[in-house]
Each structure stands twice: as structure tokens, then as C-alpha cells.
């Protein structure tokens, strides 16, 4: 078969690239290493996309201008971003909703509850897997050939250009000749031995929230081929997840939402960080990293009967007991230590008006660390706790790209016909921190650019 563009990967960025290349008239093959039922990478777990827009519609309220978008990005990254690529991403995000809808994506009207981001972000009806299904459906109708259970391993070069993609199908190695290749294989967070290079045995206690297929094989192969690394290799974005979660693919349902409603202690039943530092949607993202730094990478979110039901539960029931001593025993904590910590915390709480949606005036006084908001005493049985682990969402390490999505050599010059999109290059733009729905923005914008450029080059 005569292939123009091979897309490595099967998530959002890969699909956008495949569809965009197809729109240029290219013959496209997409390599998804997962079986069909598990296709779509980490996109399966996403729910919304961030995009700049000048007016409201029924799917996004208000205005979200490019300047405000850039300010948000600079704030969360602390400046760890390529300003040109960031500006390009934000500019291109304006046209994403129409492009996505044209390729089959359906939007969800604003609903009450759950997430309060509907000014900056637009939600897919049914979430990320529905988006993935829609794109695969459109791809099939556009003539994209999708190969499931097919693992891309390496690239072969001739005269400095990609000539073949080396794939593994059922243990048999094959070469797919092509005119251009787009790498959209995600990060390496599912590769525990790779994480151990930076984190040691602590990585055994990490929960990987997404697909088990993101093991970074192609990323490693690109580095071997002189691609320029970008992003902190030790860096990942992690939230606190229920410690009973499966090691891979537990997604949103294992995420802990309880933290601002109580306290968080480590395995010695000691508090270690301000649980009420800032509004929760902004702060839940830091707790994975905080727990990763604790002994044995475990923590316990403790709360009591009067706040149960005020937050989204995980899929597992919390550990429950009628007394703090019994709770400690059930959780495997030392009872005396937990009682001491809770007593000290309770004594430090001050009267105030509890308001979980705002930065309220319920703060502790005289303890370290403080709890700056929502500090109610933990005194109403039954007592509960969720055991928590770091749950890794994505890694920052990737390859450098230019504004045409071409992968860069270590000397900064671009590969002629090799492109990258999605998590494997997002570190160029989101070098640090987290901005809800922005991974999808980068993946969609660069997927679209990579697919268009690869398609045009192959057809030229």
C-alpha cells in the first residue's frame, strides 16, 4: 500500500493529525497500540477543552480573550513556556470548536454542578471517549486506515528523512513506508522503570490515572535519533487519588475531592500542608506532588460526619469508624498520633461561616501548617478517611517542535518530514503546572498543524 502519512498514536492529537492530513488529500494510516475497546489513550479520560473565544454561546459562557488565556498560562507555568508556540496555540484555539464540530464532536450544554469552568472550557457531550469515538468514526468515513494492536517502535531514516515506521504486530516486526510521520504517542507515565530513574522505588507507589499504553517507547527512540528533549524529565502532573485505585486507568473516579473538607495526614498521622490554601479546583492539582514527597507516598484525607456528602465521592466507600481510635486502626495509623493531630487541629479552629464555594473565614490559628479556609473541627462521628496516593495524569518530558509542528534536532534545526503533537510535545508550551483542558488544546492545535503540514508535504 502507498502511504503518505503514518500517525503514531491513537488519542486526540493523533486523530486530529490523521483527520487534518486526510483533509489535505493524504492517504493516512493511524497506529493505535491499544485494542479497539481501549483506544484513544488518555483522551478517554478527558472531558473538556480550553479555548479562547470572543463571545458566549450555549456551550461556553462569557468571553475568554487571548490575553487572559496567556496570563493564565504564564501564571500556572511560572513562565516555563515557549512564548511563540504558546501564542500560536492560544490563537489557533479560537477556531477549534468549529473544526471539532465539523469532524463530528458534539458539545454539552452548560449544566449545573461538577465543574465551574464553563467560561473558559467547552465540554464534550459524554466526555473524552465519546470524542474519541466521534473522531474514529469520522476517520473511518474519510478513508483513514486504523491499525489497532499495532505498536510503533522506531523510525527508519534515508537521506535524513523519515522513510519508514517500524511497527510491532503480534510480536512480528514490520516496516511501513511513508512520506511523512506524525508522532502523537503521549508521555511515558505508564513506564514505571523509566519513572524510577528519577523517583527510585517511590514510583512503585504511584498510581497512573490513564492508559497503560503510554510507555514512551517512541519518545526514547526519537531521542536516540537526535530529537531535542524538552521539559523536566522528573516532572509530572499528579492529583491525589484513592489509594485503592488500580495501578492504571482508574481515571476521574478515583480522584479525591474531600481534601478541603478535612485534614490530610501522612503515615505517621501528621499533617504536612495547608488543606485550605486556595479554591479547590485550583489546588487539587498540587496534592499528587505533595503526597509523592511523603514517606511511602501515602496519605489519609480525614473528615467527619457533618461534611460527608458535600463533595464528589470516589468510587470506593471511605473507611469509616465511630471513633478516631477505631478509624486509625482501620486505616493502619497509630491511634494516639491521629487523636493528637486531630485534637491539636480542632483546638486551633476558629468560629467562622463555612462556605465551601468561597475563600471563607474558617481558618486555624497557631498551628503549622495552618489550614487557611474551611477549617471546621473534626468532631462529629462517624469519622471517615480516604487513603491517598499520587495519581499521575501526564508527564512533561517531550521533544522540541517548531511552529509547523516539526520535531527539532538537538541543534534546533527541524527534521524534514517528522512531526509531533500532543503530550509528547506539550512540555514546549506547558512546561510546568496545570491548566484544566489545556492538554487537549495543545493536542488539538498541534495535531491539526502536524496533520496539515505532513499531508501537504507528502502530497507535494
Amino acid at each position, binding site marked *: 500500500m502507498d502511504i503518505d502519512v503514518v500517525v503514531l498514536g491513537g488519542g486526540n492529537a493523533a486523530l486530529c493529525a490523521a483527520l487534518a492530513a486526510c483533509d489535505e488529500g493524504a492517504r493516512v494510516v493511524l497506529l493505535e497500540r491499544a485494542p479497539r475497546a481501549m483506544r484513544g489513550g488518555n483522551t478517554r479520560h478527558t472531558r473538556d477543552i480550553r479555548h479562547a473565544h470572543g463571545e458566549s454561546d450555549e456551550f461556553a459562557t462569557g468571553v475568554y480573550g487571548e490575553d487572559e488565556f496567556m496570563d493564565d498560562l504564564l501564571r500556572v507555568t511560572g513562565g516555563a513556556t515557549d512564548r511563540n508556540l504558546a501564542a500560536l496555540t492560544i490563537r489557533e484555539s479560537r477556531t477549534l470548536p468549529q473544526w471539532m464540530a465539523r469532524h463530528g464532536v*458534539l458539545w454539552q450544554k452548560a*449544566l449545573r454542578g461538577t465543574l465551574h469552568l464553563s467560561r473558559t472550557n467547552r465540554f464534550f*457531550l459524554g466526555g473524552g471517549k465519546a470524542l474519541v*469515538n466521534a473522531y474514529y468514526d469520522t476517520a473511518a468515513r474519510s478513508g483513514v486506515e486504523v491499525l489497532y494492536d499495532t505498536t510503533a517502535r522506531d523510525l527508519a531514516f534515508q537521506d535524513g528523512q523519515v522513510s519508514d515506521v517500524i511497527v510491532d504486530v503480534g510480536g512480528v516486526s514490520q516496516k511501513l513506508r511513508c512520506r511523512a510521520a506524525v508522532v502523537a504517542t503521549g508521555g511515558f507515565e505508564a513506564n514505571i522503570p523509566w519513572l524510577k530513574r528519577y523517583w527510585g522505588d517511590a514510583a512503585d507507589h504511584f498510581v497512573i490515572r490513564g492508559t497503560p499504553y503510554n510507555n514512551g517507547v517512541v519518545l526514547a527512540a526519537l531521542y536516540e535519533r537526535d530529537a531535542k528533549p524538552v521539559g523536566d524529565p522528573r516532572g509530572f502532573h499528579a492529583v491525589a487519588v484513592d489509594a485503592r485505585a488500580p495501578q492504571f*486507568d482508574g481515571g476521574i473516579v478515583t480522584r479525591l475531592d474531600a481534601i478541603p473538607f478535612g485534614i490530610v495526614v501522612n503515615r505517621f498521622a501528621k499533617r504536612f500542608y495547608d488543606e485550605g490554601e486556595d479554591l479547590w479546583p485550583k489546588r487539587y492539582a498540587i496534592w499528587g506532588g505533595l503526597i509523592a514527597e511523603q514517606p511511602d507516598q501515602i496519605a489519609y484525607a480525614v473528615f467527619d460526619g457533618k461534611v460527608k456528602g458535600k463533595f464528589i465521592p470516589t*468510587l470506593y466507600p471511605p473507611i469509616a469508624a465511630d471513633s478516631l481510635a477505631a478509624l486509625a486502626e482501620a486505616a493502619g495509623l497509630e491511634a494516639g498520633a491521629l487523636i493528637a493531630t486531630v485534637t491539636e487541629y480542632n483546638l486551633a479552629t476558629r468560629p467562622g461561616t463555612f462556605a465551601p464555594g468561597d475563600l471563607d473565614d474558617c481558618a486555624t490559628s497557631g498551628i503549622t501548617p495552618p489550614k487557611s479556609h474551611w477549617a471546621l473541627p473534626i468532631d462529629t462521628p462517624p469519622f471517615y478517611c480516604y487513603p491517598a496516593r499520587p495519581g499521575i495524569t501526564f508527564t512533561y518530558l517531550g521533544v522540541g517542535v517548531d511552529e509547523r509542528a516539526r520535531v527539532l534536532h538537538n541543534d534546533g534545526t527541524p527534521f524534514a518530514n517528522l512531526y509531533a503533537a500532543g503530550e509528547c510535545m506539550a512540555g514546549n508550551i506547558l512546561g510546568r503546572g496545570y491548566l484544566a483542558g489545556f492538554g487537549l488544546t495543545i493536542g488539538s492545535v498541534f495535531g491539526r498543524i502536524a496533520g496539515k503540514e505532513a499531508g501537504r508535504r507528502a502530497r507535494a
Partner: protein
Amino acid sequence: MHELDLTREIDRQLSVCNACRYCEGYCAVFPAAELLTSFNDGAVTYLANLCHDCRNCYDACMFAPPHEFAVNIPKVLAEARVRTYERYGWPNVLARLLRSGWIAPVAIGVLVFGAITALGGPANLVTRHVGPGAFYAVVPYLALLVPALAVSLWGLFVILAGAREFARDVALPRGPSLNWAAFAKATAGALSLQYLKGGGAGCYYPRRRGSSARRRLHGCVFWGFLAAFVSTTLAAIEQNVLHIRPPYEIVSAPVLFGIAGGALMVVGCTGLLVLKPQSDPVPTSDSMKAMDYAFLVILELVAITGMLTLVLRGTSLMGLVFSTHLAALAGLYVTAPYGKFVHFVYRYLALIKNAAEKSAD
């Protein structure tokens, strides 16, 4: 699955849903589930009947099998609906005897056909009868009226008794929230089959692509059934109030309604029967599928024989076709309170509860 096990399994799966909430734009089930933290028998029964089986949530679920969380909401809710139909069909002995499957309706049909044959003699079935009272030459009026009325009243009684128990078990709200607005909203939702629209995506049925085919075909069956019911009622008025005995002219209200109803039912049932084998068997239950097939086939048989009676009423075949129509009707009506037929009752009550709770919110 055992009853208690099914409730526990649904509680487990909906706990995953409540921690996720990605599907809340598809239908009323997920927003309703979010109001609860655990799911007892009544809650499960309510949500199962609120579900319209569009199946979009299954396709959109990243935790669907082969994922270890094994979330398959349309399947377990279908099982809970089958349980509903069985549980609220009184008496239980009859419910078990007459529920889904072919044996009961076929046996009843054969029995009725045999009785008609015995009553008038086999030759009467192939004799040409025309003019006023022609149908009663095949089956005497009282022999037709008394069993038909008895079965209808019995069915009505069983269905109302079941509805009353269901309303109690799912804790249908009483008081101010159960108002005309809630009834109007539930009725509009039921008549438009709003929740087969998948929140705008269409229904992923029979294939994994949004489609309105099922909603439209179901509409044909419903409106067709209603038109046939109107036709029967009008005929009764003509006969008993205006004293005009059937058969009626083609251009008469009973016959026109009958033609419209029969045609719609044939189109709807045929379409649904064509779609069903193409649909994915994973997000549904075998027992529900068996019920669906039995109900659709009997309904279609009733419609086809009814239409044939009209077409052939001037010929000597009328007796045979008319008797078959009555036999099929008997099979439908006797099993109705214990089979798929009752789904509209519980779904409508679930919609009323949902509308009332939303208005109280």
C-alpha cells in the same frame, strides 16, 4: 442474577458513575443518580425505568468492559426493568407463567382460535359473510364482547395495582411538587421520547453511531397503537350509541383510524425487528431481548391480521383471517400486564417522579 445481587451490582456501577458524571448530558438517569449516595432497591427500580435504553453511556464509558470496573449501565438497568415487570405483575404465579417468551401467547392464541372453530364449525370460517353483522357471523357478539371486556378489565386492574405498588416502592413524591407542571413535563417527555435523543447525539442503536431511527419507529408503534385503540372505541360508539353495526365503510372514522394505526404499527414493529438483531448484544440483557421480540412479533401479528381482515372482508377468507386476528389479540391482551407492554406505565411514573423532583429542586 439474584435480586439482591442485581441491586448491589447496580449500586456498585452507579457509584462509579457518581464519581465520574461525564454522562450527565445524555439523559435524566445520571443527574437523578447524582442526588443519591447509595442505591437501594427502590432507587434502582426508579432509575432503571427512567432509562430509555439509548445506550450512549455505554459507548462513552471509559470504564466499560474490558476495563476492570466493568461498567455497563444499559445492561444492568435492562435487567432491573425485567425485574420490575415481573415483580409488579399480580398475582406472581400468573406473572411467572405469562411473562416474556412465546409459549404463553401462542398457547392462548391457539386456544382462542380452537374455541372459535369449535363454536361455529370449521366450515363457518371459510364461508363468505358480508353486510351488517358479518363479523358476528364468525363469532357471536356476546362471545366476543364478554371475554374481551373481562381480559381488558383484568389487565387494567393488574396494571393499576402494579403502578400503585411501584409508586410506593420508588417513593413517588406526594404534595405540591406532584403538580400539573410535573405531569405535563413527564407527558411531553414520554410522547417525544426525549431521552432516546441522547442529549442531542441521537441513540447509538443499532450501531455505534447516533441515529433517530429507533425513536421514530417506536413513535410509529405508539401512535399506531393509540390510533387502533381510538378506532375500536369509535366502532363501539357507532354500534352501541348510533346503532350502526360493523363492518363500516372504508371512509368512516373507525376504519380510517384502523388503517392508520395498523399501518403505523406494521412499519414500527417491522423496523424495530429489523434493527434489533443488528444491535450490540453487550449493553442489554437476554431476558429483555426475549421480551422485546415476543412483544413486537405479537403486536405486528395483531396489526397485520387486522389489516388483512379489512382487505379480505368481502371474501370467504375473512372468517379465517378475523379469527386469527382475535387469537393474536387474545395472546397480546392476556400477556400484556405481565410482559413488555407495561413498560410505558413504569417509565411514565419514573418520568413523573423525575419531573416532580426537578420542580421541587
